[in-house]
Structure formats: structure tokens, C-alpha cells
């Protein structure tokens, strides 16, 4: 009986829950896990569901707790703002190191984004970023939030946030140029 009920909820709410988790975590893989965990937890504590709220509200409250847990773990593993990226692309006078200086990508037609191979390189380079940096650069496109709100959500000061973005983008750009344009 219980299983039938939960099973019905899986059919009804999985999609909304998944999309919500994806907006919050920016990773499809992690979102799938979180939704699965939520249903596991729901099965275990179904007796505490009294019907005061709708099933959807109840499931989302469990899911939100899972998302918070996920962030908590992540903040603990947070990468510090280490400066190795900066010192590898800029010299002591804060000018570009010659070898790492941006070169012309000459994508005049702007068709580069259509190319599957380019998208692969971009994905490879995004995945190579430290996890928190990866999350920071993606967040703008996952939520409709502005810079200030994103900072609040991540518990970062504004200057800390754009310093992370700065380092992440320097590394991304460098990675793309080396993997794509120099071949």
C-alpha cells in the first residue's frame, strides 16, 4: 500500500523535483542522486507524513534538506583562492606571460559554437576546473539570479565571487586555447 503511494508520487513528481535539483546543483548526475535519495528517505519516514501538507510539498521539503546537505559537504571541501592560476598567466608586473597571452581565435563567422568538437573541448575544460569554480561559472545560467543573489546563496562576498570567476575564466580560456586552437 505504502509502496503504491510512493510509486504514484515517483511518476507524478520526479520531473519537477529533478529540474529543481538541477537548478540548485548544476549537475544532472548529482540531481538524479538527490531525487533518488529523497524517495528513499520518503519511503522510510512515510509514517511521519500526516497529510497536513500536499505530498509534493512534503517531498520538496525532504529534497531541499538533501540539497542543503550537499552544499554543506561541498563548502567543507571548498577550494581556497589559491593564486597559482594568476602566477602562471601573469608575470610580476601583472602583464601577460608571453606564452600564455590570448591569441586571435579568428572565429569571424561565429560558427565555432556549432562545432561538436569545440563543445567537447569546452566541456573537457569545464570539467577540469575545481568543483566550486565550475559551479560558480555555471550558476548564472542555471538560475535567474543576479550576481548579488548568487553570492548570498553561496555565502561568498561579492569580491570573493568575482575573484573565483576571474581565476576560473583565465584557466578555462587557457585550456581551450591549448586544446583547440594550437592543434
Amino acid at each position, binding site marked *: 500500500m505504502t509502496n503504491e503511494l510512493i510509486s504514484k508520487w515517483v511518476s507524478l513528481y520526479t520531473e519537477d523535483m529533478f529540474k529543481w535539483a538541477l537548478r540548485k546543483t548544476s549537475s544532472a548526475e548529482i540531481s538524479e542522486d538527490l531525487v533518488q535519495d529523497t524517495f528513499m528517505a520518503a519511503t522510510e519516514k512515510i509514517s511521519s507524513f500526516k497529510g497536513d501538507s500536499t505530498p509534493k510539498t512534503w517531498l520538496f521539503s525532504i529534497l531541499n534538506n538533501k540539497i542543503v546537505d550537499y552544499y554543506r559537504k561541498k563548502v567543507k571541501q571548498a577550494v581556497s583562492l589559491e593564486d597559482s592560476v594568476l602566477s602562471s598567466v601573469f608575470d610580476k608586473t601583472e602583464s601577460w606571460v608571453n606564452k600564455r597571452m590570448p591569441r586571435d581565435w579568428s572565429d569571424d563567422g561565429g560558427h565555432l559554437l556549432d562545432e561538436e568538437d569545440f*563543445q567537447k573541448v569546452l566541456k573537457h575544460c569545464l570539467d577540469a576546473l575545481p568543483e566550486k569554480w565550475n559551479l560558480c561559472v555555471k550558476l548564472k545560467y542555471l538560475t535567474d539570479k543576479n550576481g548579488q543573489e548568487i553570492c548570498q546563496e553561496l555565502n561568498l562576498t561579492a569580491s570573493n565571487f568575482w575573484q573565483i570567476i576571474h581565476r576560473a575564466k583565465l584557466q578555462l580560456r587557457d585550456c581551450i586555447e591549448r586544446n583547440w586552437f594550437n592543434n
Partner: protein
Amino acid sequence: MRSIKHFFLISCLKATELIEKKFYFKLSFSERLQLKVHKSMCKACALYGKQSAFIEKGISWQIKKEDLKVDIEALKTRIHQMLESK
């Protein structure tokens, strides 16, 4: 004279930082001016600005693709199976 020069001239590191900040926050008047002056003199940072905007576009594409890629029905099936096997 020296202080005016100092005000306008920012390093490449600082210029690229402003380029990134601009995607999220409104730059102050003096920041905008500093960035403009720097980019007019530094080809590498001007290129960086273009490429950075291009990468932003690429990231938004990647995310749209990720959204489409996930098979919700398959996920439902997996969860159903997981619950049954408990």
C-alpha cells in the same frame, strides 16, 4: 601628473578582473574608464574580453544541452526499481 597616469593605467591582471566582474556587477565610472583605456592599448586584453564573452555563450549552450540530455522517464524507472528491490 604621475597620479593621473596611475589612475588610468591598470595592469592586465586588473583589467581581466574587471572584464569578469562586468558580467555580474555594474562597474563604477572610474572602473569603466580604466578598462576602456587599457583595452585600447592592450591587444591581448581586448582579445581576452571577446573570448571571455564567447566562453560565456558556450557555457550557456552546454547547460541547455545538459537539460535536454536527461531522460526523465529512465530516471523514474530506475527509482521504481530501486523502491521495489528494497
